[in-house]
């Protein structure tokens, strides 16, 4: 084992502040991005789990969120492509929700987003992970399906009745994997949607869900549809739309700026604390370093020891970050908060932590000037 590594292990208490600072910086950034990514993921859950291979949006739309209204006459246009099996508009509308509080239970009232699905196996609007029982339950008039994590927020249990837009509905079941930070999603059939006044038969429709005869040709058909539409709409494959919607989420509302700012604060705090801690720790061993200098070990070699030390501090910080983030992810899971830690964020954060550690090491090199072997002679 090298001197740097054994020093870090033996005197870990001395380096703890630096390791914690790095882990907190990592946690700060990852928790923030994880939350937003989780949010974005739950926003796009309806896209990701749709059996539609292609989605049609107005030409200017960059994702699912924003203005996605378009003329209904696009539907027959899309059908013109021979590869298309089914086209249905995605219906998402707002409704007012209130529960019937039982004894001592607080009254809950909230706006919810109604997602209209066809309770028929294989229907293009029906998320592919809905169980047969859920599909059956949806067939009843006034039946609604919630995400499990929304039960508390909406103040109901499965089987309870509640009010939507003034009409009484029944919570017929729950699904998993559709949590939403801001607006709770409620699934209903088209029939129920009509009954609670959220189905819209006007001349404009939302995004179109397109099921293909041959799902493997999605990319090609999307390109052909775009030619066919001649700029009146834009066809996306499901994966493209999901990604673009997530990116759109990130860009919107200054989330990227916020995360960038957090990252900057994290980096700054990380560097300052790690640097100061490293300096203190080096200073504590300065006489040992000086004795190496006396024995002829060059300054460059001592610098290498410090850089190696800061590298190991970075590794320790990374390990602690993983532990902390796993803890947070577990808590989030228990609490029903959607979080997601995609690799394309984890890797830059890991690199960032290592850069902080090494930079702090570089900043600490100056302290080595104090390792004057002549000072050992007194």
């Amino acid at each position: 084992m090298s001197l740097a590594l054994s020093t870090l292990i033996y005197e870990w208490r001395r380096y703890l502040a630096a390791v914690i600072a790095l882990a907190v910086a990592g946690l700060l950034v990852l928790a923030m991005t994880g939350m937003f990514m989780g949010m974005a993921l739950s926003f796009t859950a309806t896209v990701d789990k749709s059996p539609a291979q292609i989605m049609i949006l107005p030409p200017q739309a960059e994702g699912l969120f924003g203005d996605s209204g378009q003329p209904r006459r696009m539907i027959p246009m899309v059908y013109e492509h021979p590869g298309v099996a089914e086209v249905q508009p995605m219906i998402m509308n707002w409704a007012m929700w209130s529960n019937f509080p039982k004894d001592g239970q607080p009254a809950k009232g909230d706006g919810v987003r109604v997602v209209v699905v066809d309770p028929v196996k294989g229907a293009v609007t029906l998320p592919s992970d809905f169980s047969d029982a859920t599909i059956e339950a949806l067939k009843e008039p006034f039946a609604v399906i919630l995400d499990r994590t929304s039960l508390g927020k909406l103040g109901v249990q499965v089987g309870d009745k509640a009010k939507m837009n003034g009409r009484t509905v029944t919570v017929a079941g729950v699904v998993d994997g559709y949590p939403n930070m801001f607006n709770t999603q409620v699934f209903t059939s088209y029939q129920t949607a009509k009954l609670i006044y959220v189905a819209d038969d006007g001349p404009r429709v939302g995004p179109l869900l397109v099921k293909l005869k041959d799902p493997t040709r999605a990319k090609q058909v999307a390109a052909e549809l775009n030619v066919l539409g001649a700029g009146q709409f834009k066809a996306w494959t499901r994966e493209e739309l999901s990604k673009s919607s997530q990116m759109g989420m990130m860009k919107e509302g200054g989330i990227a700026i916020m995360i960038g700012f957090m990252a900057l604060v994290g980096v700054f705090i990380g560097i300052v604390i790690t640097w100061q801690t490293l300096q203190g720790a080096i200073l504590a061993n300065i006489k040992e370093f000086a004795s190496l200098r006396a024995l002829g070990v060059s300054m460059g070699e001592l610098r290498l020891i410090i850089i190696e030390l800061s590298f190991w501090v970075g590794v320790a910080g990374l390990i602690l970050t993983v532990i902390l983030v796993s803890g947070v992810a577990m808590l989030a899971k228990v609490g029903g908060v959607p979080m997601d830690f995609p690799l394309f964020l984890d890797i830059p954060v890991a690199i960032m932590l290592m850069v902080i550690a090494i930079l702090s090491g570089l900043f600490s090199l100056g302290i080595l000037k104090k390792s004057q072997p002549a000072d050992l002679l007194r």
Partner: protein
Amino acid sequence: MTGKLALNAKGLSKGYKIGKLKQQVLKGVDFTAYHGQVTMVMGPSGSGKSTLIAALSGLMKPDEGEVMALGENLWKKKRGKIDRFRLDHCGFIFQGFNLFPSLNATQQVEQVLKYQKVKKSEAHRRAVEVLDAVGLKHRLKQKPAELSGGEKQRVAIARALSKMPSLIFADEPTSALDSVSGQVVIKLLHQAAKERGAAVVVVTHDPRLEAYADRVIHMEDGKILSDTMISGPPVIV
């Protein structure tokens, strides 16, 4: 090698500026040390003994004078070359032991050998051998916290000796030790001179160590007062 001149310094002067005052610590000191001899430098505190050692060993450049060490003009060298010279030829023992808390006795020695580009297995063999020679065979795996002061100083000596230096500088090596440990340490330094032919320069103000000296130099106020050969003049070869 016994009897050959290892160090030959002429006209060493060094002063420290304290504020506007300049305090002259070495005042034109001439100094020699021979291979195979323990040269003891004694004198009251503040007389410039440590400063002299620093100048002789390449740790601190004197204001004036030159040091011929192993036939090379030490202070004419570039800094990197002086480091290299110390790495190749010099061993140091200080009053404090300056051992890394995280390394055990063997690793302390190996650490230094690593920088001499000694192979791992060879470094280990030499470390064990030299620790055995200083009587620490049963302490190979102990870290400084588990060693007594005398044992720590012996590790420091082993660290210095493992490099097989021709020049050994010891600055008050026994003042932090009890008299028994002090005896052990000075015996080891004496042995290094006799068996390895190293030129050993020991700074001390412990008169009991004089018994092990081949030559005693008294310093006071930056000057050499007396220079006594005890074991007779060295045989010049």
